[in-house]
């Protein structure tokens, strides 16, 4: 597999009160096309990642909507929904469409507009990614990830302070990213003092509600401007609800998707220099690092406190140089695409203060629900 990431673009992530989904999409795609040097007429397919538009905005049919909006009318266009993994899935679908030989060049757009809607409606809509039993029980995703966190704490002795260290790291990285939602560093004490959302998770253990869009232009052709390639694209699924899992201290879909991706790319964990992982809650980042084999089960929390995944002090791998979902923001459908944008930027060496030194191999990890979908991509120069 050798798909070129020809162009990338993304909007500022945050509470973008004045921005409509159309505006966000336009900004990201226009930037990606301009970056790629590809003519718009060369784009043969459009994949739109989004989760909430139909439920919150009563607007479905996003493929055709954004094809029209972006001046791509006539181009085959698809909406891809896989909860918080929608973006990663859309990239995967774009990659598959090129590998199938159907298209040469496609655009993948991730877009989400969340702040126009009341928080309780957003929470309720997000639970569309959970199981019916979980919804009937009144569970929310903070509650489900709190169960995972508590299980991890009981089995491995992971502490609330270690969880907080994830948020501190990601806010530090986000402080170096002008497009991030939160550009201020925080301390462990601030995380521990923040409001309890779902014990043991505090407010600052949770990724925020975010507006934003990201887009990439993928092509089978070599690019004169970009030497970044997707060398693995893998997806795995698991039960929708936590009750169906054998273990609550790992996400099997992550393990399976990562294993497939490593095999596809012909690389090992030690070859990955940096990764954008799905830290919707701080425990999710710890699980991701462990499940993909970047750290031993039960030891990641301790190492997180030591700063071995932090820019400047990392021993082997930098995790979430963009700030992750926690610091950069989490506009659901856009997140997985933004991860590709960040890794591509790192591989191009254009990340300024948050640049990973001599970046050559990076990975993205995007999760839907509480681990029912996992998408892993590996990118190389």
């Amino acid at each position, binding site marked *: 597999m050798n798909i070129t990431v020809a162009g990338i673009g993304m909007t500022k992530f945050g*509470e973008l*009160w*004045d921005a409509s989904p159309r505006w966000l999409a336009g900004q990201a795609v226009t930037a990606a096309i301009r970056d790629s040097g590809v003519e718009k007429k060369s784009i043969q397919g459009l994949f739109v990642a989004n989760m909430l538009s139909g439920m919150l905005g009563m607007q479905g049919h996003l493929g055709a909507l954004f094809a029209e909006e972006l001046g791509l009318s006539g181009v085959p266009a698809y909406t891809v929904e896989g909860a918080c993994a929608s973006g990663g899935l859309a990239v995967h679908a774009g990659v598959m469409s090129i590998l199938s030989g159907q298209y040469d060049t496609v655009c993948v757009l991730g877009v989400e507009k969340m*702040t126009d809607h*009341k*928080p309780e409606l957003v929470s309720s809509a997000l639970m569309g990614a959970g199981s019916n039993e979980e919804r009937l029980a009144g569970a929310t995703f903070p509650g489900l990830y709190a169960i995972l966190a508590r299980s991890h704490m009981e089995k491995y002795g992971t502490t609330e302070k270690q969880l907080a260290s994830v948020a501190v790291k990601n806010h530090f990285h986000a402080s170096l990213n002008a497009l991030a939602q939160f550009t201020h560093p925080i301390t462990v004490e601030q995380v521990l003092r923040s*409001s*309890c959302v779902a014990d043991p998770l505090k407010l600052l253990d949770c990724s925020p509600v975010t507006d934003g869009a990201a887009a990439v232009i993928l092509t089978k052709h070599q690019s004169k401007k970009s030497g970044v390639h997707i060398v693995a694209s893998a997806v795995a699924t698991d039960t929708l609800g936590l009750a169906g899992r054998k273990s609550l201290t790992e996400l099997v879909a992550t393990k399976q998707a990562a294993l497939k991706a490593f095999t596809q790319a012909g690389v090992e964990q030690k070859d990955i220099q940096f990764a954008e992982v799905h830290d919707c809650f701080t425990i999710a980042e710890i699980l991701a690092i462990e499940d993909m084999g970047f750290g031993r089960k039960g030891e990641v929390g301790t190492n997180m406190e030591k700063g071995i995944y932090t820019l400047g002090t990392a021993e082997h791998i930098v995790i979430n140089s963009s700030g992750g979902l926690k610091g950069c923001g989490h506009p659901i459908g856009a997140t997985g695409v933004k991860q590709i944008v960040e890794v591509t930027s790192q591989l191009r060496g254009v990340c300024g203060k948050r640049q990973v030194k001599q970046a050559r191999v990076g990975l993205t990890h995007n999760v839907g629900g509480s681990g029912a979908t996992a998408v892993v991509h590996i990118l190389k120069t």
Partner: protein
Amino acid sequence: MIGIVSYGTYVPKYRVHTEDIAHAWKKNPMEIISALGVTEKTVPNVDEDAVTIALEAALQSLSYFKGKPSEIEALLVGSESHPYAVNPSSTIIGELLGVGTSYVAADLEFACKAGTAGVQMIAGLLSAKQIKLGMAIGSDTAQSKPHDALEYTSASAGSALILGSSNVVASLLSYTSYSSDTPDFWRRDGIRYPSHAGRFTGEPAYFAHVMGAAKLLFQKSKLQPKDFDYCVFHMPNGKFPREVARRLGFTSEQLGPSLTVDHIGNPYSASSMMGLSSVLDVVKPNKKICMISYGSGAGSDAFVWKTTDALVTIQKKRKEQNGLVSQQIARKSYVDYLGYLKQTHKV
């Protein structure tokens, strides 16, 4: 020069602790108090509503007024809790004040700035020489749904200003408004409690409008924050007025005397007018006050007031009669959360 001839305030006697509300909903009281900056709020008695509260404030303002109630030629009452959907609060109050029948009366609604909208309208009538005296009232028994974030701050109080063209205690040097269609907070007809758009009520709503009005006022009056002795803002919680004052370049000393929110919460239409009254209670003559209200939906009214020597007489009377805002705030009795629910007719 148009200005305030007299003013009156009414703060209900009862209070509920923020802590008690938080405990009722299993929330951490310190988190709530830290986030909102409000430790207690006023609670109306079981027989108090926006009309009775407005009447109390209006009566107090008349008690310092040398003329007769019948000289009032305009009576505008701003509230978002008018007891009747159809049947004006203003005529009930006018009748009980003894204004007579030769006056224009109207009820106003513009969320938390309905009272100051009335001030601007009466200023216009005075400037046009259509009337010689008018009264603008802001009064609310603010609604909030149990367990909503508003419940910690929605309060009750009233403030009345008698405006005229002579014998003023504070001259109105300049005023302006800033309005837009910004749906941050609303209550549809027939619905008991208001809805709000969470964090949207902050930056694009309160801060955008208050700062927008401030900039217009500064341009129009050719004054800057440093030229004012005091500032007053709408106070939906303890944080917003402090933050907007900081952003505009006012000091905590300029803002301090207006911060009634710390003690009584947010009595919606009465909030900024109560803040102004609190400043008028302590300010010396020839001092400038910048006042900016905010009403959701959304808009801000901005004013420049300059106190006169005549203010001292009213201050003295208010103090002698235990009528200062600070004295009214100090006169209090606490109810628990259940008492609060009963007195606001929620149970």
